[in-house]
């Protein structure tokens, strides 16, 4: 990552740490045909931070399943799912947000995990400990991270 790219990533990390104002909670998200119109944060996402989320194992880990030509530095991306190149030509921002939040509203029975979802699971765990989650588990991505990922996906045009 170049030095300049660090700055927005860092800024995003700081924003995440601050208490969220007027965020839409996972159980309050409204889907329309799989799409989610309203931004979860009301603030535009940061595509650079989004790229980081997508390639970090413990976060989105999108590259476990998707290849992305614009990310040639990612080693061993998986090939289970369609390549994400041109995603912004195929889907609107609201559709992309819906797919990231919970793809099963767009693709029934999808293999893709819901990234901003906290209920409806069978035996949810406490992260990767193998132990039971106490109450609803936190979503895999925060509202900011979802918006950051959506912002990055919107840059994927052919």
């Amino acid at each position, binding site marked *: 990552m170049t030095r300049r790219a660090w700055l927005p990533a860092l800024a995003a990390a700081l924003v995440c740490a601050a208490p969220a104002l007027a965020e839409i909670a996972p159980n309050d998200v409204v889907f329309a045909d799989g799409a989610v119109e309203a931004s979860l944060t009301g603030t535009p996402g940061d595509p650079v931070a989004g790229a980081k989320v997508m390639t970090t194992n413990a976060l989105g*880990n999108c*590259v*476990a*399943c998707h*290849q992305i*030509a614009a990310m040639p530095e990612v*080693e*061993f*991306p*998986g*090939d*289970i799912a*369609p*390549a994400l*190149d*041109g995603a912004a030509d*195929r889907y609107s921002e609201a559709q992309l947000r819906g797919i990231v939040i919970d793809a*099963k509203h767009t*693709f029934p029975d999808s*293999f893709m*995990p*819901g990234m901003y*979802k906290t209920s409806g*699971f*069978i*035996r*949810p*765990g*406490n*992260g*990767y*400990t*193998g*132990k*039971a*989650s106490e109450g609803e*588990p936190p979503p*895999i991505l925060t509202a900011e991270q979802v918006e950051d990922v959506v912002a990055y996906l919107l840059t994927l045009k*052919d």
Partner: protein
Amino acid sequence: MRRTITTQLAATALGLILAGAAWADPVEDTLVIDTDDGELEIVTKAPAPDHLKDVMDTIWSGWHYREDETRDLQRDDFDNPAMVFADRGLDRWNAEIGANGESCASCHQGPETFKGLRAVMPRVDEKTGKLMIMEDYIQSCVTERMGLEPWKVTGDEMKDMLALISMQSRGEIVNVAIDGPAQPFWEKGKELYYTRFGQLEMACANCHEDNQGMMIRADHLSQGQINGFPTYRLKDAGMVSAQQRFVGCVRDTRAETFAAGSDEFKAIELYVASRGNGLAVEGVSVRH
């Protein structure tokens, strides 16, 4: 509509997909093992058993999905890192550790008396009607017949013994019973196999049936067969039993796992074993 769009996209994606193609399928190869008693060919690929015919034609051992170097380690007992654990199992077999000085050998003679057993396990015990995995039989002898504290289900003593007993059936074709008294357990195992657990909402079948042959990041997904178990896992530099592997796979779905040796994982073991009916017991295998 999405499907059409994805097809158009295929043109762009083609380069990437082709680059991965070398990996896409199980490798065509034959496993012939150099043993002390000469060469032994292992059936690692077979027509799917009847109960699987509607979802797949061919069953493949996980051996076919591993890199050349990993597969090679299993071709010669001399190179196979799991053999020392089977040898250690033989030492334990002969050790007079029971409360009254019994060893396994005092009642069972040599381990070769268990030839064929591994190929039909798990099974329902005729006397008790309980579903038994190999660990259960060993445990009942350890505690009830030798007066010892129970062995840890996934501990070294247990896994050494699993390795030794599995080796006695090396090359024999897996043939677990799924009907009669086994049927309710088998149905339970099947249901669990298709249940999407955890925050990632993934079932065994999502990875090992729908996506076998694909890459999930750097991992080449196999059919999740257990004919090779117990296995020496290079990543852990140690032996892994099927029960232990199940714990790991469920944990990786961000789920609360079941315990090794639990009724759920025993039912899963029976069901998964039955998906491998037709493959040969590998004795002790090597995976990464």
